[in-house]
């Protein structure tokens, strides 16, 4: 069978499965729509959380970032997993005990303030909307690359599928589809990784293979990779390149941001008991770590394969580089997508791939007759997408990778859309505009806001605003600097009050946003940057992506000081805090 047929078959079968689940898991009440009726088993919720969490970026881009940054990319691995420890220990069980539908609702009740709730809704909407645009773009990219339909058509097909299970089923439909999507994406990610680990090291487990001997050279794989890259002027793979402070703060920002992202937090409202919320976070991390511990192996092995494909013999030997006429088929295929490009600068009919920015290597390169790096473009995304082809794996594996990328993007999009629609229908409409609305009308409002959110997300996915690429910095910065600190203080500091929470959130948010906008342009408008986004200009060498941790610190300090210098929260709020600290008496999550 051709690759095209395999792809249609595998992707089509996975979509039929999602639609079948959508039909079976329709929501009949607001409880089912917002929290899946509160009856999800902790292991099942862990799996759904993992799919909810792992986006197109985790699936497609992360291994590529690791491949090219080596050790420095550890910030993403630790940051995006360590946040679950904070979530499990500091937030999830207490928010589950509190037993409401949304994150802003907790903020509003705990601080006895509709203003605080509104600030929470705004933070949630901005963080989730920017994030969901990236997912829709991911769906369009996966479709246009693997199924040879247009980008717009791809986004629209994705919108229709999400529409069915998210609008009909709400959290219930989303949860069961996410479980199916997790299975699809994890098989799609690990199968090629196992094959490649076997080819290079003879060890099936990639986590072990990365630390094993590479069979061809008899050297340890990572030592061999270090040698191959340093021989061509690149920094050693396992060596640190960025500043320690920046890696430290980036890891911290990603961890705090992860724990503060509302679409992840609300997944823990769906389990029956407080103790399930604790263990469910552990299961979520197990399912996430299966992919996250495989990714470093995929990155390193793909980098080694790529280097060996181009540098076929000794460095400096005229015959040591691959002839352009002899490059493998996959290189030509990916060249047409624009993700891979080369240019014969010295006209020798061969490709040289080396670090032409290294001063130390320059003299050597000149003596070889090299006139600059000829691999003019190697996109991060190619490392996962082209991996099965690089390793000569059968067509069905390549088709599986397409279905996996789509599952990752769709599952994250659905989780974000639910967070958005529940903030609109439950916090804005039911909570502020029309408190006397009936359950049936609220359910309808939830469905309409979900449909509206899908249309907006799809439109923005097709016509991405300039800031689409900056979503990671923005979404995590917002969650870290505004949402996480007020939630944590709401539980652990009985004395924290409404004015403290509101001023703290605004202070944390402003600090972070101003820092991001300073280097990336006000509201990401090109040309309005106050300074070039380079390490020399950064405050103490801290990148905008890593600044969320500073914003969180500002939020904590301001909220603490303002709370201490204003009146203590009323008696009933102090009782509420005492009550959420003990599991006894938690019912199913309710809206009132």
């Amino acid at each position, binding site marked *: 069978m051709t690759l095209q047929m395999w792809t249609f078959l595998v992707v089509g079968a996975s979509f039929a499965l999602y639609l079948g689940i959508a039909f079976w898991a329709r929501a009949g009440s607001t409880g089912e729509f917002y929290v899946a009726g509160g009856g999800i088993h902790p292991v099942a919720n862990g799996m759904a959380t993992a799919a909810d969490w792992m986006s197109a970026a985790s699936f497609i881009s992360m291994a590529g970032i*690791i491949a090219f940054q080596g*050790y420095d990319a*550890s910030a993403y*691995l*630790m940051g995006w*997993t*360590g946040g*679950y*420890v904070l979530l*499990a*220990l*500091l937030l999830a*069980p207490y928010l589950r005990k509190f037993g409401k539908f949304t994150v802003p609702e907790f903020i509003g009740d705990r601080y006895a303030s509709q203003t605080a709730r509104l600030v929470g809704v705004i933070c949630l909407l901005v963080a989730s909307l920017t994030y969901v645009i990236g997912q829709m773009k991911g769906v369009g990219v996966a479709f246009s690359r693997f199924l040879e339909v247009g980008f717009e058509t791809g986004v629209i097909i994705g919108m229709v599928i999400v529409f069915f299970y998210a609008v009909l089923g709400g959290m219930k439909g989303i949860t069961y589809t996410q479980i199916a999507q997790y299975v699809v994406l994890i098989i799609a990610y690990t199968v090629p990784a196992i094959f490649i680990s076997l080819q290079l090291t003879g060890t099936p487990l990639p*986590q072990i293979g*990365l*630390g*094993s*001997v590479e069979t061809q050279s008899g050297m*340890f*794989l*990572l*030592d061999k990779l270090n040698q191959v890259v340093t021989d061509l002027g690149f920094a050693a793979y*396992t060596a*640190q390149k960025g500043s*320690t402070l920046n*890696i*430290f703060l980036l*890891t*911290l920002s990603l961890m705090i941001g992860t724990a503060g992202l509302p679409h992840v937090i609300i997944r823990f409202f769906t389990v029956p*008991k*407080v*103790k399930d919320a*604790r*263990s469910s*976070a*552990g299961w979520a*991390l*197990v399912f996430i*770590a299966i992919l*996250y*511990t495989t990714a*470093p192996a995929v990155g390193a092995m793909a980098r080694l394969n790529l280097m060996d494909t181009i540098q076929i013999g000794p460095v400096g030997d005229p015959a040591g580089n691959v002839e352009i006429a002899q490059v493998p088929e996959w290189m030509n295929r990916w060249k047409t997508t624009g993700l891979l490009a080369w240019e014969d600068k010295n006209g020798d009919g061969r490709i040289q791939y080396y670090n032409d920015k290294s001063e130390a290597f320059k003299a050597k390169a000149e003596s070889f007759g090299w006139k600059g790096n000829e691999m003019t473009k190697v996109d991060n995304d190619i490392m996962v997408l082209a991996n099965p082809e690089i390793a000569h794996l059968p067509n069905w594996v390549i088709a599986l990778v397409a279905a996996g990328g789509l599952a990752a993007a769709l599952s994250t999009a659905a989780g974000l859309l639910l967070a958005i629609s529940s903030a609109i229908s439950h916090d804005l409409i039911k909570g502020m505009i029309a408190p006397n609305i009936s359950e049936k009308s609220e359910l309808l409002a939830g469905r309409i806001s979900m449909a509206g959110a899908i249309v907006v997300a799809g439109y923005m996915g097709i016509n991405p605003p300039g800031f689409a690429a900056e979503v990671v910095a923005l979404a995590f910065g917002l969650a870290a600097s505004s949402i996480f600190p007020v939630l944590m203080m709401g539980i652990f500091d009985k004395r924290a009050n409404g004015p403290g929470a509101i001023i703290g959130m605004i202070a944390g948010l402003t600090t972070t946003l101003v820092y991001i906008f300073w280097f990336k342009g006000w509201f990401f408008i090109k040309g309005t940057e106050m300074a070039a986004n380079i390490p020399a200009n950064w405050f103490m060498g801290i990148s905008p992506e890593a600044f969320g941790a500073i914003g969180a610190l500002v939020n904590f300090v301001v909220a603490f000081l303002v709370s201490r210098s204003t009146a203590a929260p009323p008696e009933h709020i102090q009782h509420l805090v*005492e009550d959420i*600290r*003990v*599991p*006894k*008496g*938690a019912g199913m999550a309710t809206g009132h």
Partner: protein
Amino acid sequence: MTPENRAAYWKANLRLLSVLLVIWFIVSYGFGILLVDVLNTISIGGYKLGFWFAQQGSMYIFILLIFFYAWRMNALDQKFDVHE
């Protein structure tokens, strides 16, 4: 539940939390970032130890921390009779 009991339960919880968060910090920020060069002088198999903590080990320990917390807290809930 008496206020003394409630306070004792919360104190036990905070003690457990602090210990686990110290470990959380040491394996990621300590071994994976601040002490990475020192640990990299040691190797296990083909992994330099600091690099292993940053890209593998910290994540395994995170999982253990959460399950250990869930297990200890469930026991604490029983002891103070605050379970559901």
